C-alpha cells in the first residue's frame, strides 16, 4: 500500500507530533508514504478570496500525484476536503479541466483527476483500506482502561456530498471504531460533532476560543482521559490553545489531546518518544504512565501464569 503523503501547511510546522506518529505508524502497519517535493499548500486559504486560484493551486498538487502515479494520503481534514472537492470537480467538468490545465501549462487528455487518483484522509485509509482486522493483528499492547473522547472535526466528513456516503456525517463512527481497535474506550459526549472554531481563529479569536471551549467543557464533564483527533487545525485549538481557553473562561482542563496515530502507535508498541509526545502542549505523561504500568502488569501476569 503506497501513497503520496500530503502534509499541507500546518502539520509539518505546527503539528509535528502528528506527522511523526503518522510516519512511524505507517511503517509499522505497512503503508509506504512517499514525499513529493511538488506538494505545497492545498489551496484552502484562498477559497474565500478567489475561487479560480483555489482550483488552480489544488489542481497543481493533484497533477503532481498523478504524474507520480500515486493516490494521496492527507493528514489535515481541510486539505483533504479541498483536494477531494477539486479532484471530483475537475474529473466531471470538461470545460473547467481544460481551462485549468491550459493555465497550468499542462497537456489536456493526460490528467483525469478523481478518475485516475484517489485522495483520502489518513483516518479513512486506516478505516476503509486497511481495516480493523489488519490493524488488530499488529496490536502489541492493549490500551484497556483508557477512555477517550473522539473529535471528528468538520471537514473529514463534510460536506458529505463529496465523500460518497463514507461514514455518517451526523453520527460518525469510523474514528470510534479505530479507537476501539486499541482497546481504549471511545465515549459519546455532548457536542461530539461540534466544530473546533479554528476556521475563524485568525478573524475573531474570541469567537473561535468560545466555540472550542464548548467542547472542552463537554469532554471534561464526560470524564474522558483525553481527546483524540485527526486534524492539525483542531489540534491547534484544543492542544495549543487549551491553556488560553482555560484562562479566558477561568477554568483548568488539563486534558491531553492526542492525534489518532499517537494513540494507535502506543498500541502498536512504538516508543512514546518516536510518537512525538514531547511535542504535545498539554502533557500526557500521567496517561502514558498509566498505560505503561498497566502493560507491565499484563506482562507480569503472563509470566506468572
Amino acid at each position, binding site marked *: 500500500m503506497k501513497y503520496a503523503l500530503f502534509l499541507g501547511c500546518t502539520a509539518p510546522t505546527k503539528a509535528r507530533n502528528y506527522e511523526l506518529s503518522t510516519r512511524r505508524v505507517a511503517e509499522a502497519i505497512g503503508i509506504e508514504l512517499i514525499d513529493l517535493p511538488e506538494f*505545497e499548500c492545498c489551496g484552502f486559504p484562498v477559497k474565500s478570496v478567489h475561487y479560480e486560484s483555489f482550483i488552480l493551486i489544488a489542481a497543481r498538487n493533484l497533477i503532481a500525484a498523478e504524474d507520480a502515479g500515486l493516490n494521496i494520503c492527507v493528514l489535515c481534514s481541510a486539505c483533504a476536503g479541498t483536494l477531494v472537492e477539486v479532484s471530483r470537480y475537475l474529473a466531471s467538468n470538461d470545460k473547467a479541466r481544460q481551462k485549468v490545465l491550459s493555465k497550468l501549462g499542462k497537456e489536456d487528455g493526460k490528467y483525469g483527476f478523481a478518475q485516475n487518483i484517489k485522495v483520502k484522509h489518513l483516518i479513512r485509509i486506516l478505516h476503509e483500506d486497511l481495516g480493523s482486522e489488519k490493524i488488530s493483528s499488529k496490536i502489541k499492547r492493549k490500551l484497556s482502561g483508557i477512555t477517550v473522547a473522539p473529535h471528528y472535526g468538520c471537514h473529514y466528513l463534510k460536506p458529505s456530498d463529496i465523500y460518497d456516503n463514507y461514514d455518517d456525517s*451526523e453520527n460518525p463512527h469510523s474514528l470510534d471504531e479505530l479507537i476501539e481497535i486499541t482497546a481504549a474506550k471511545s465515549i459519546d459526549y455532548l457536542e461530539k460533532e461540534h*466544530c473546533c472554531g479554528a476556521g475563524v481563529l485568525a478573524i475573531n479569536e474570541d469567537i473561535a476560543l468560545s466555540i472550542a471551549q464548548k467542547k472542552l467543557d463537554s469532554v471534561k464533564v464526560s470524564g474522558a482521559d483525553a481527546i483524540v483527533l485527526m486534524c492539525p487545525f483542531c489540534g491547534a485549538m484544543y492542544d495549543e490553545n487549551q491553556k488560553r481557553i482555560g484562562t479566558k473562561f477561568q477554568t483548568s482542563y488539563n486534558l491531553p489531546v492526542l492525534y489518532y496515530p499517537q494513540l494507535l502507535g502506543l498500541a502498536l508498541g512504538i516508543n512514546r518518544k518516536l510518537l512525538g509526545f514531547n511535542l504535545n502542549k498539554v502533557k500526557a505523561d500521567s496517561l502514558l504512565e498509566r498505560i505503561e504500568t498497566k502493560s507491565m502488569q499484563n506482562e507480569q501476569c503472563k509470566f506468572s501464569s
Partner: protein
Amino acid sequence: MSCILVVDDEPVVLDGCEATLTKTGYEVETTLNAEEALDKIEAGRYDAIVTDLKLPGLSGIQLLKIVKDKEPETDIIMITGYATVQTAVEAMKLGAFDYISKPFTPDELRSVVDRAIERRRLLREERLRATKNRVAFEYNMPADLYYLPEHSWVKVVTENTVDIGIDDVFQKTIGVITDIKIPSKDTIIEQGNPCAEIYGAAGRVYKLLAPVNGQIAEVNELLKKDSSLLNSDPYGKGWIARIRTSDFAKELANLLSGDAMIRWWLRREIVERKTDRYVQISALNPNFKHEIAREPGGENIKVCFGCGICTATCPVREIDSKYNPRKIIRMALLGMKERILKSDFIWLCSTCYACTERCPQDVKFTNIVNAIKNIAVKEGYTHPVFTAQVDLLAKHGRLYEIDEFDNRRREKLGLPKLWTGEGSAAKIFETSGLLDILKK
C-alpha cells in the same frame, strides 16, 4: 402542466419570455395590457403571473392589487427597470412574489418562475395532507403569540410571566422531534441565546434560542416525559417553560406577531425605514442575488425559503448573534449588496458545513458565503487576514515559511527535510489575476 400568464407591452419581451418558459415545460399565455390580462384571469386559472410594472392603462401595481384581492394565492412576479426598483419593493409589500430587473437572462426568469411554482406545489401538497389528516394547515402560527424569528414563541400569561415554546415551522422542517433538554427551574435565560436542546431524527441536535430574558419559573414536566407533544401540539401542551420576565416590554421590540418571516423583514427594513441600522431602499440592488448565483458555490441562493435551520445550527451564531446565516441570505435576496460586502460578519463563517448538511433546500450556505466573499474581494473589500495569507502563500508556497533552521529541527526529530523557497503560488496568482484584484 403549470400555466403562466405574461403581461408586457413590448412584444419582444413577451416573445422572449414565452420561448424561455415554454422550453422549461410551462404552458404560456401572453397579453399586452393589464385590462386584457384581467379578462384572461377571469376566464382561466394561472399558476403564476409575470407582469411588467409599467403598462399602458392599468399599471402592473394596479393589476397586482386586483389579482391579490381576488386570488391571494396567485403568485405575481414583477418585471422592473432599474428606475422602478423602489416601486418593485412597494409591490412586494403588496404581496408580489418577487421581482426581476430588465434586462434579465432566461435563467433568471426561469429561476424565479420555478420558485413560485414550487412554492405553490408545496402549498397544495400541504393543503391536501392537512385535509386528509384533519390537522391544522402547516406553518399555522397563532396570531395571539409573539415570535423570535429563530423559531421560539412567547405567550403572555400575566404581567410578569410568559410561556415559551417552539414554532411549527421549525418543528415541521426538522421532522420528528425525539427528545428535548430543558434547563432546570431557576435557570436564567437570555433573549437570543440557546435555552434548550432539541433532538431530531438521526440524533441531530438543534439549539432553541430564548425569545425573552428571564428566569425559569416552571418547566413543562409533561413535555420532558413525552417530547412528541412538540410534534402534535407545539402551541398548546407542547409549551416548554414558564418564565419570569425581567423587561418584557423592551424585549417585545425584537419579537413579531404571527406573520410570515418575509413580512417581518420587509416591515423592519423597508416599511419602518430603520435606515440607521439597515439599508436605504435606493441602495438595494435586485441583481445581487443573480450575481451571487453566478459565482461558483452561489448557485442555490434563490431556493432558500428562510426556515432558519442554518442559523439554529451555526456554532458562530451561538456565540455571536451578529452572525446570522439566514439573515445574510435574506439580506442578499433583498439586494442589500453594499451593506453585505462592506460588513465584517461575512468573514466570520468557520466553514464547519453544519448549515449545509442540514438545510432542507440544499442551499449550501457555506458555499453561498464563500461566493459572497469572492464578490467582496473583487469589489475591493478583502479582509486583511486573507490579504496577508495570500501574501504568505505567494512568498513561500505555504502559510508558514520553512527555513534551514526548521529543517535541522525536523531532521533531529527524525522527519525528512522539506523544500524551502518560493513555491509556485505566486505564479498561479499571476495567472489567475488575483494579485491584480488585491491591488485594486
